[in-house]
């Protein structure tokens, strides 16, 4: 039984990380996605309500409107150090709201090149502007 459990746990672990690509999670110069070729400005969502937009191999991650509403007022954002290497589905930080610490998971594999410093002083940006000023990494 114990061996079976081990296999089960391993099987349920995330699949092998994405093939090596020059993904970098980066500066959130988030241009709103109206114009331009669809390839550049598509926002994709995970089933855990994180979103990612990518441009030139650089991705920006945040949480969805559904998620920020469910969380309530965010009072603290715990984000990783720049240079941290993340695999898809790795936990990279947490958001705290009304005494609940909610974990954040990376939608893709990559290296953190920038974090949203504005959130240190103003964590509420995640609620007010989850798709723009409230980007995370």
């Amino acid at each position, binding site marked *: *039984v*114990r061996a*079976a*459990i081990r296999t*089960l*746990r391993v099987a349920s672990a995330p699949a092998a990380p994405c093939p090596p690509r020059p993904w970098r999670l980066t500066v959130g110069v988030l241009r709103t996605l109206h114009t331009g070729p669809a390839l550049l400005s598509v926002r994709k969502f995970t089933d*855990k309500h994180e979103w990612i937009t990518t441009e030139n191999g650089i991705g920006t991650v945040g949480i969805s409107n559904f998620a920020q509403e469910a969380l309530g007022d965010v*009072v*603290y954002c*715990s984000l990783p150090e720049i240079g941290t290497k993340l695999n898809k*589905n790795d936990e990279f930080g*947490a958001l*705290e*709201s*009304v*005494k*609940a*610490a*909610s*974990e954040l*998971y990376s939608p893709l594999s990559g290296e953190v090149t920038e974090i949203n410093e504005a959130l*240190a*002083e103003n964590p509420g940006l995640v609620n007010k502007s989850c798709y723009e000023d409230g980007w995370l990494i």
Partner: protein
Amino acid sequence: MLVLFSMKNCFKLLSNHKVPTAGFKNTVKNGLILQSVSNDVYQNLAVEDWIHDHMNLEGKPILFFWRNSPSVVIGRHQNPWQECNLNLMREEGIKLARRRSGGGTVYHDMGNINLTFFTTKKKYDRMENMKLVVRAMNAVQPQLDVRATKRFDLLLDGQFKISGTASKIGRTTAYHHCTLLCSTDGTFLSSLLKSPYQGIKSNATASIPSVVKNLLEKDPTLTCEVLVNAIAAEYAAYHQIDNHINLINPTDETLFPGINSKAKELQTWEWIYGKTPKFSINTSFNILYEQSHLEIKVFIDIKNGRIEICNIEAPNHWLPLEICNKLNSSFIGSKFCPIETNMLTSILLRTCPEDRKLHSKWNILCENIKGIM
């Protein structure tokens, strides 16, 4: 499901109620009630981590009871210097732990019961849990005026806080835990949870102080044991499971493979102090030296628990600027910790010429600096 199955085989069933062990098979169907035999805060927090990381709680919620020997527990994103009297804790041998859930700072001793409600993320409902606790208490004492607030605290007689809440939400599971004050040392609690440290600027989450009271003060029948049994009974009724409290040993690696390393991690300096959000100290203290008063100004920036910027300013006539600068630069990168400061002081003094006066000045200065750590 399989994980639960293996635990089922390993559990030594020591139930508070004389229920035949054959009944355990049915217990596992819709939920489980656990109680820790350990009073070590780190081991108990590790149980929470373990269950959160390894168990599939679909259709099988878990209630976990635990009590700790005297400890102060801070929330995931808090600053211990801001929240408690670390000097007093060191003197009295009170442990400091940082939990993984959010929320504020609490004091635990054997007169406090901790309850953890484990569910899937979908079934996470703090108010439902608190209502259950209230029902349990009213089952013992119908006259008791206990109510849950919007922040999921419990208030006695509309004014005294007897329970505080915090939670952690993961990918598929969540846990909500709360305290329950039965017979805690209230005076000690107040002095421990009062920070003497001045001039701290931080964006860490701050606790909201409350006036607390013990349930035992209100009603001598409300002991820890009575309350644990009442809450377990209410939980069992609600989830339609056998009223069976399973005692577990948090150090048992066969029950919880990998749990001891989780407990170890929770005790590391890097986790307890190093996870403190970046903060700065801007303060001053006075030294009495040969009948003159000297003001020492302190500006320190601390990141990951280590000194990033250090500016200790002493009057030039008392301590030469170059000595002061030497002290400041030696602090950079070191832990914001009195033990480390002691070490640094010894090392620095050895590099100094045999100047008794300088040595004594330096010692006085460092003693005071340690006082703000």
